[in-house]
């Protein structure tokens, strides 16, 4: 039985819809004055973060707490990891403490997959290297469905640094499963080599893609990679691939703009676009907690996980 969430590619259409439908019901709970549910009482969720990510960690923490699980935060800084402990030893320690689920963020692609072979509990990938970030894709899909009412047949443009983006890969796989048509838009230097095998279209021309898109998802330009010469200058990138007011005007009236955060205002997205009512950026954060609650409930709430099917 599959009891982990490592990649959105492991989710069937039914799994993905079950997560979104569950999140839809849980969203109502977050509107009440008592936001807590007793469902995961007595279960322990460990947040194992080898990379800094305040928003993802807080989101998972809030989700687990709203389901009454006990949460242990473990960050690599100031822990035994900085003293040289291996991932495996860390995993075995957590195992001995009785973790029912481990939420892991790691700079190495594949770390959650390895971890899953060492622990008895469920492993939830909270971002591994340039590989995947499944809960981000799920919350994006959830945000799109809430705004536009459906996913089937939507045209979705994912724009920016696809090469280093785990969000892009998870989104392409998930949105394809859910029946949307994804187009990746990026300079050739920022597309991975094997992108031809992904279930999506590729374009180098943002202006051509925009008028046909129902959703434009901007990826963060990872400033730490700026000096690696993937593009000539920040200004040139911004002019060719940034979403500014003029480009925004070319979208059709119902189209929405998304960004997984944190944003570089003025770089990949202009402040005006980010703050427009057609931007879902703030909703995405709120929806993140709800979707992560749904994932934790479906993985830990029953005798066995309700998603993932047989391995």
């Amino acid at each position: 039985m599959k009891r982990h969430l490592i990649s959105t590619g492991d989710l069937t259409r039914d799994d993905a819809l079950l997560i979104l439908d569950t999140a839809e019901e849980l969203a109502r709970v977050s509107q009440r004055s008592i936001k807590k549910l007793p469902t995961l009482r007595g279960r322990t969720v460990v947040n194992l973060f080898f990379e800094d990510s305040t928003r993802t960690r807080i989101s998972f923490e809030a989700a687990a707490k709203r389901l009454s699980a006990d949460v242990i935060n473990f960050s690599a800084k100031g822990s035994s990891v900085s003293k040289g402990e291996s991932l495996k030893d860390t995993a075995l320690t957590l195992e001995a403490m009785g973790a029912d689920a481990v939420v892991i963020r790691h700079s190495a692609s594949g770390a959650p997959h390895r971890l899953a072979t060492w622990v008895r509990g469920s492993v939830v990938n909270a971002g591994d290297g340039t590989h995947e970030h499944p809960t981000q894709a799920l919350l994006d899909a959830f945000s799109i469905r809430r705004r536009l009412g459906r996913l089937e047949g939507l045209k979705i443009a994912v724009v920016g640094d696809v090469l280093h983006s785990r969000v892009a890969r998870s989104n392409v796989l998930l949105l394809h499963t859910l029946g949307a048509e994804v187009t990746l838009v990026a300079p050739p230097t920022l597309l991975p080599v094997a992108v031809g095998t992904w279930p999506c279209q590729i374009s180098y021309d943002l202006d051509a893609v925009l008028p046909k898109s129902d959703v434009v998802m901007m990826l963060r330009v990872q400033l730490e990679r700026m000096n690696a010469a993937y593009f000539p200058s920040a200004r040139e990138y911004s002019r060719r691939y940034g979403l500014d007011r003029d480009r925004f005007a070319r979208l059709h009236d119902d189209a929405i703009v998304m960004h997984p955060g944190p944003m570089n205002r003025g770089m990949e997205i202009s402040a005006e676009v980010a703050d427009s009512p057609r931007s879902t950026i703030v909703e995405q954060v709120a929806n993140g907690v709800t979707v992560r609650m749904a994932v934790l409930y479906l993985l830990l709430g029953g005798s066995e996980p309700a998603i993932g099917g047989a391995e």
Partner: protein
Amino acid sequence: MSDARNQARAVLEGPDIHRALTRIAHEILERTRGAESVVLLGIPTRGATLAHRIAGRIAQFEGIKVPVGAIDVTMYRDDLRLRPARPLGRTELPPDGVDGRTVVLVDDVLYSGRTVRAALDALNDVGRPRAVQLATLVDRGHRELPIRADYVGKNLPTSKSEKVKVFLEETDGRDAVVLIKEDDR
């Protein structure tokens, strides 16, 4: 209606269900002095349907619009860990909530009482009713908790090996309560 392994027998047909709900509606009116500050909350999915039907009858008899809603109890169940996590039902509370009101919980079948126990917990998280009452279409006995119904459509003596299935027009295309006797497995 019966297949090779199971014997199914309809114990209530459409008109019986109709009469039972009419009686429950009258009893609620009587017991709550004209459904004063009553809120009907059904337990999804069929309890919610029944709650709407009872509210419809109360409106018909006395011209009072009783607030109706649904309260999902899945996250509060005590048997969650015995089965894979299941899909959630919808909780829909009336706009004025339940604070200070008499909540009548509505379910289709009352059996162990565990669903009602979960519903009481769920209710606790959405407000503080003045009183809580319970209406059920079928009471099939075998209680495992100290819970009883205030309004019962039909008391149905069953054995634990039997199953009671409620069909309703809105969800199943017909009205019937069926007793399914499972042969030795």
